[in-house]
């Protein structure tokens, strides 16, 4: 896993060897710089994000660069993935007008998904999205997209109305609702979008690390070995569970982005 496991292994730290449980914490998400360029540290998550980008591009290049009418296996897999995001997420949420945003959201889905999957890839073993900088960047893109669309479609006043003025509500409720809507749609949306992805990946990674470290720590010639093996089983089960969560979070991220764009494109009411 992260730095801790290595440290524990190096220290030979086990249940009855006189050291306490080296509980993993925030330090699991803090990496020593691999190298520094002009005062900027280049860390493992950055490297992983670059690798993820290359993987996504590489996969779709291999699948779609020379597309055939009768698809090969790789092209077929790519088509299924592309079609899933296009139909089940984007067009389902936005409708026919969403055709324009398909490339952005498809890129986003596969980029986020592969960054999440890094959590359980040997040697990588770190979900890039658990560093909040990455979800923040993507959420910013989503925010800029739907805000721009809102004001472009409805003008300044109409755009504000689209963001804060819900329809079919009696007038006196507006006093409460309009500030809430304003706050929610403009400030809370991007924040929750980023934090949701980040927190899920963060928590998932921490869980896997805790049980992995524990199974290593408990591995000693005593009853601890039994607990250790239970802990190991849990770590394996959590890994499988994380696989699901990784997909789900990528799905939710893109789904919410689509629904924000759909809201921006909605006709004035």
């Amino acid at each position, binding site marked *: 896993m992260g730095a801790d496991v290595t440290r524990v292994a190096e220290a030979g730290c086990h249940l009855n060897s006189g050291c306490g449980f080296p509980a993993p914490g925030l330090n699991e998400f803090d990496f020593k710089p691999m190298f520094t360029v002009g005062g900027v540290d280049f860390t493992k998550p950055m490297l992983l994000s*670059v690798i993820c980008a290359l993987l996504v591009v590489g996969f779709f290049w291999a699948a779609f660069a020379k597309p055939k009418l009768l698809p090969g296996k790789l092209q077929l897999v790519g088509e299924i993935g592309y079609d899933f995001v296009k139909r089940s997420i984007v067009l389902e949420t936005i409708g026919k007008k969403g055709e324009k945003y398909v490339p952005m959201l498809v890129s986003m889905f596969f980029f986020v998904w592969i960054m999440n999957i890094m959590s359980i890839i040997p040697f990588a073993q770190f979900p890039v999205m658990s560093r909040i900088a990455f979800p923040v960047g993507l959420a910013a893109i989503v925010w800029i997209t739907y805000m721009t669309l809102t004001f472009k479609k409805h003008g300044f006043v109409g755009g504000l109305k689209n963001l804060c003025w819900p329809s079919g509500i009696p007038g006196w409720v507006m006093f409460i609702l309009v500030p809430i809507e304003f706050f929610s749609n403009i400030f809370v949306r991007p924040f929750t979008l980023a934090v949701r992805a980040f927190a899920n990946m963060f928590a998932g990674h921490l869980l896997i690390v805790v049980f992995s470290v524990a199974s290593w720590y408990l591995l000693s010639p005593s009853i601890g070995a039994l607990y250790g093996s239970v802990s190991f089983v849990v770590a394996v089960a959590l890994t499988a569970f994380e696989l699901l969560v990784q997909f789900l979070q990528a799905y939710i991220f893109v789904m919410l982005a689509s629904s924000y764009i759909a809201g921006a494109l909605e006709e004035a009411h």
Partner: protein
Amino acid sequence: MNPVVALAAEAQMNPLLPAWPEVIIGLLCFFIVFGILGKKLLPSIEKVLSERRDAIEGGMERAETAQAEAQALLEQYRAELAEARHEAARITEHAREQGAALIGEMREEGQRQREAIVTAGHAQIEADKKQATAALRQDVGSLASQLASRIVGESLEDHARQSGVIDRFLDDLEAKAAVAQGASK
């Protein structure tokens, strides 16, 4: 290194604060993905997908056209067949009528010929009878006068002929025969 000390030192990090270099790298990576997918790969696959859709729809359209054509051809054949049947029935009917007419004509013709033959026969018989009657009359007259001249001993022949005795006698005989015939009837 003591992990506990390391933990204490690193606990200062705030996981909710983004590190700007990471944000920039992340955005860069995303835009690389978005750029290549959005500009090149997705349009190319989209083109192929729409081509495939066209091919499938075109195939279906072609099949539909072929089916419609086949249907039309079938209709045409059926119509032609019905017409042919009708035609055949008409021809048969016509032939039957013509046959019937022909037979009628033949019958009439036969009748007429028969009548003609019968009439001719009658006429012939009548002529023969007349001739025979005339010949008989002459013979009977000459025979009777010969017999009488033998009996009388002189030739009565020319005299009898000149006086028309024989003819009167024969006419009387005929009249008597006719009366007798009418009585016996």
